[in-house]
């Protein structure tokens, strides 16, 4: 399956939903009137794009229609696509060949940090890199076992301490081992934490400090893992994590399921953070680089 097909398959539900809505609206005259634009706004809101982004997009379309007089289905959809694209930024994650690269996986509980780390390990291995994972979730029951199971499946070394150990110490050890073994990519899996918990956010900042101190020469990406089924709280999450530890990229998981995925647009727009990864299933290979244009192609109806 091509990259696009995988992506598109994941978002089938969303596109079906949008297509049905938009087709229903534009069925009559083939042009959009004011009420239809209101309805289009609601479709965006229902896809979890959020109030701000949805309203802004529709306002832009209204202005576009005023200026060009083009309210055709094609014209409106083209412009919607442009507008939404303008709200998102994307970035491709790199792995350096001449120095250590570290991906720090962070996020609230249950979003898919561990699974995404494993997927990244699999991908980097396939590309011929030397990979290692660090089990810095020392809190959740069997979190370490889960990462170790992924380590076996992807044949990746896992650095782990016992449950309850200091996660910063795990990270310290992992960086030392990564250096000793000339690792290219070190993936650090951390415990899920709600952004509202000060002590847990402080713990993350401490991990970040260890990385800065012990691997100041490394390329470090701090990846916030967001669950695509999340509603407006995702924006708050992104802001809080960014404020605490400076996020450098977003991974949107579970795009293969029920989610409409609009939250990707909302979060990127509100925070300016780039979208890097798309999680499309529970297996090691179910990962894609986030592509704005593919995302929108998959999201919006065919013209």
């Amino acid at each position, binding site marked *: 399956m091509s990259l696009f097909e995988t992506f598109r398959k994941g978002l089938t539900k969303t596109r079906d939903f949008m297509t049905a809505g938009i087709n229903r609206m534009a069925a009559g005259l083939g042009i959009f009137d004011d009420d239809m634009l209101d309805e289009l706004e609601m479709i965006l809101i229902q*896809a979890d794009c959020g109030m701000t982004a949805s309203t802004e997009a529709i306002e832009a379309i209204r202005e576009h229609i005023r200026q060009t007089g083009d309210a055709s289905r094609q014209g409106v959809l083209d412009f919607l696509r442009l507008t939404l694209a303008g709200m998102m930024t994307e970035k491709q994650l790199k792995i350096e060949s001449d120095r250590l690269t570290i991906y720090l996986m962070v996020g609230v509980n249950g979003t898919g940090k561990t699974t995404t780390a494993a997927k990244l390990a699999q991908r980097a291995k396939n590309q011929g890199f030397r990979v290692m994972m660090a089990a810095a979730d020392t809190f959740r029951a069997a*979190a370490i076992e889960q990462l170790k199971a992924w380590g076996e499946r992807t044949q990746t070394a896992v650095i782990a301490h016992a449950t309850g150990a200091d996660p910063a110490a795990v990270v310290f050890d992992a960086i030392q081992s990564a250096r000793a073994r000339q690792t290219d990519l070190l993936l650090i899996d951390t415990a899920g934490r*709600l952004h509202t*918990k000060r002590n847990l956010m402080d713990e993350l900042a401490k991990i970040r400090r260890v990385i800065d101190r012990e691997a100041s020469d490394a390329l470090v990406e701090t990846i916030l893992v967001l669950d695509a*089924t999340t509603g407006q709280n995702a924006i708050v999450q992104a802001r809080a994590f960014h404020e605490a530890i400076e996020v450098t990229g977003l991974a949107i998981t579970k795009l293969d399921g029920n989610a*409409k995925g609009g939250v990707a647009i909302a979060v990127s727009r509100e925070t300016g953070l780039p979208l890097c990864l798309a999680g499309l299933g529970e297996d090691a290979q179910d990962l894609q680089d986030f592509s704005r244009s593919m995302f929108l192609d998959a999201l919006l109806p065919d013209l």
Partner: protein
Amino acid sequence: MALFENLSSRLSRITDAMRGRSRVTEKDIKDMMREIRLALLEADVHYQVVKDLSAEISDKARGAEVLQSLTPGQQVVKIVHEALIHVLGEEEKLTVSPTGFTVIMLYGLQGAGKTTTAAKLALYLKDRGKKPMLVSTDVHRPAAQEQLQILAEQVGVDSYINPDEKSALTLAKEGEERARYMMCDTLIIDTAGRMTVDDQLMEELKAINQALNPDERLLVVDAMIGQEAVGIAQAFESRIGLDGFIMTKLDGDARGGSALSIRRMTGKPIKMMGTGEKVNDLEAFHPDRLASRILGMGDVLTLIEKASEAFDQDQAEKTLERLKANTFTMQDMLEQLEQIQGMGSMKEMLSMVPGLGRKLGDVDIDEKDLLRTRAIIQSMTRQERDNPRILNASRRRRIARGCGLEVQDVNRVVRRYDDMMKMMKQFGMLGQGGKRRRGRMPLSGLGF
């Protein structure tokens, strides 16, 4: 910090503009309804539910007395709050099978909190004299069964897992056999996470449902979930059957609007609320509190309960009484500050109060600040502490001298007190919305 405004401040913009005019226009109502819709959508309430509710609320709000009242904004908030409480319905007990062997099945999306909740429920039942057993049927997520086993040990109940078994159905059946053999009276089935669009996984769940015929089929849903919540609940309901739901991760600042949507669109009750990662973080559902939360009006009761957990009941009771009676003094404020300080992070506490963070943004409570505040309040006379309104300029100067600080510092403390009072007035009003809760003390137990 707070991204979204609460309904009250949203409405006050409109009602402020109305002041001085003798008539409330249809447009005023329309504007207010728009704000209500926005507030609900921001809380992730399903679009259709927002539409229906706003029509109902708008009818009620047209009642003349609402708009003739002194604070129309608050009156409207009250109407909305009550409408939400009504939709959310009453607390409902878990079903106990008359056969003496109750089967509870938990299902939901990946990462929603099913496994954690299964363990929490087991502990909850065990604490109430039941003998539950946990069985994992998760053959998909790595180490999911080990996770359940560890949690079962933590809460001290029996569990059945078999990581080598590839069939979820077999695990469920063997779990039931084991539970009966062990003379357990309740079997809690933990299942793998699944999207309702995944036919294969839905069939797996259906098979377990048919074979074990659970008394309770509970959807575990993350408080952070967006618009899709209703579709998911309806899909589970039609394909498997749904008896109620448990909302998790309510210890964060997500508004949890999906609770309203699911309840409204499926008619199924909320059974419990998950409020933390630990096995005892399970609470009974209180409609009035959840309604306040959805409206971003904070959850002052939870705040007080949390305080009373860490400190003595008397103190909390006193605070609650004073909040209600509107006799909250400087002395109370000092005690409050000290309590909250003792509990760790003020921000963390306040984060339970969506919409409040921003309001209290400049009320940052650090160590030094607390010491200063304490010094200032201690330099006040008894009379001043009980009735800060008498704090005129010369009294403030005297207090500043008394504690070696500036008058501005004293002013700041007084302003903070005023802010708190304003906040509490808001809650005071809301507290009356949930009549049933009044008089019931924090931590009076989770009772079925």
